């Protein structure tokens, strides 16, 4: 477990931060079924986060007691929800990646294999949900097409970070990029959307989350998330 700790922390932070973002949708979704679906995905991710962070230490100390620069999530997951298209694009990029990663992890024998084996089914659902909406929005109305293309374009430079090496992981992350791109390209194509031509990372902006460098929006997200816990040091809940 100790060897896997840096990876468990990073993947746990990914899941925690994305769960927190998705939780902001509760009660605000465009249709009641999506209140259910987005909260359900958030719950799955929160469950993953708790398992992963517990491999590293106390889940609550880690979630509520760390400063921004101590979080190891990719910047992709901390991007604000934006409109529904941005939430879906973020989810598509992340879920396709997570499904590939967890499938590979589940086949191995690291300390993360059991979590991955358990989570891979729920992640497949997340991916399927994101794909279906990518199709509907991309190939829906003119407005939804435009919004979805903007979302895909805007988040593209946060995707490269998903494939950077991660200490403690017995999976070649760089090797997941080709299948990831293939799947994303296929979905975007079916959705009549263009695959962005820009860079999939920039050296300072996206790509540094794993080293603890985040975006301005992340600090505000943490302030909201941690305030109550920090206001009562040592209390049990």
């Amino acid at each position, binding site marked *: 477990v100790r060897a896997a700790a840096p990876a468990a922390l990073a993947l746990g932070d990914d899941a925690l931060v994305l769960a927190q973002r998705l939780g902001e949708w509760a009660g605000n979704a465009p249709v009641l079924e999506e209140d259910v679906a987005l909260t359900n995905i958030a719950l799955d991710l929160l469950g993953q986060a708790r398992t992963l962070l517990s491999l590293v230490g106390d889940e609550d100390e880690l979630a509520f007691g760390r400063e921004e620069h101590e979080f190891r999530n990719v910047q992709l997951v901390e991007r604000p929800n934006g409109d529904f298209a941005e939430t879906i694009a973020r989810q598509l990029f992340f879920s396709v990646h997570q499904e590939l990663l967890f499938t590979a992890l589940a086949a191995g024998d690291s300390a993360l294999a059991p979590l991955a084996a358990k989570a891979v089914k729920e992640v497949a659902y997340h991916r399927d949900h994101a794909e279906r909406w990518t199709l509907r929005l991309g190939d829906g109305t003119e407005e*939804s097409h435009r919004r979805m293309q903007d979302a895909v374009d805007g988040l593209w430079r946060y995707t490269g970070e998903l494939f950077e090496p991660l200490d403690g992981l017995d999976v070649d992350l760089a090797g997941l990029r080709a299948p990831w791109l293939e799947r994303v390209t296929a979905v975007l194509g079916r959705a009549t959307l263009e695959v962005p031509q820009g860079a999939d990372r920039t050296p300072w902006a996206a790509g540094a989350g794993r080293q603890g460098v985040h975006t301005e929006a992340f600090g505000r997200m943490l302030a909201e998330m941690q305030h109550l816990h920090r206001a009562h040091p040592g209390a049990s809940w």
Partner: protein
Amino acid sequence: DALRAAFDAAVAEDTRIEPRDWMPDAYRATLVRQMAQHAHSEIIGMQPEANWITRAPSLRRKAILMAKVQDEAGHGLYLYSATETLGVGRDELLDKLHAGRQRYSSIFNYPTLTWADVGAIGWLVDGAAITNQVPLCRCSYGPYARAMVRICKEESFHQRQGYELLLALSRGTAAQHAMAQDAVNRWWWPSLMMFGPPDDESAHSAQSMAWKIKRHSNDELRQRFVDICVPQAEVLGLTLPDPDLRWNESRGAHDYGEIDWSEFQEVLRGNGPCNEERINRRRAAHDNGAWVREAATAYAAKHGEAQA
């Protein structure tokens, strides 16, 4: 006539009325009104609790709260489906909600000011809801009764979680205990109002009871709720904010103080603390989502897929 007689017999024998059965127009209208109000309450009721999802003080509590809010959305779905069995669709009902022409439970016009409010809502508001709803599991209209069975099961789970949340606070630090007591102080009276006006002022009660849509009077249910809560509050170590609350040996029930019905009427009239916020938030979610729903419809039309 024969249809009417069959309906009356079914009600009398506690056989369920089903969607294809004949039913009086007024029965149908009463059911639609009540089920719509119940469905609206579930979706508006997501807001005060969702207010704390992003701020829950532990991951375990965050997960419990998310699951609860998700259940509420699910309850909304069951109930709108149940109204559809009576030929009234969700879109039509939502339009009425957004236009202020249909109600939701007034309790959700109170704010959640602290984390303890999440517990107080679970214990008191869900508790009152269950007391109201358990009899509805035997309601004469089949789809509504079946929806209520499932909903009550989940609600009672929520109620226990709320109780346990308050218990943890009550036994926690002094600040946590005070937070819990403050929440109970603010939610107790509004919870008692959830049973509706006193029996002698209740407009729809008699007919609803005759139809077995309703099974007990407002005051009966309110009394039942008070009698359940008093010992629970003792275990919690929290005080119910009613100096007149005491056991009445002769009635075998608790006496309780007078309810401020003027407050109830004010909230009903739209002057509660959060009436505007709640309905504005709901409308904003609906309006901001219009392009998404249009996209789903357009896609389904192109590809022959059932709409999302």
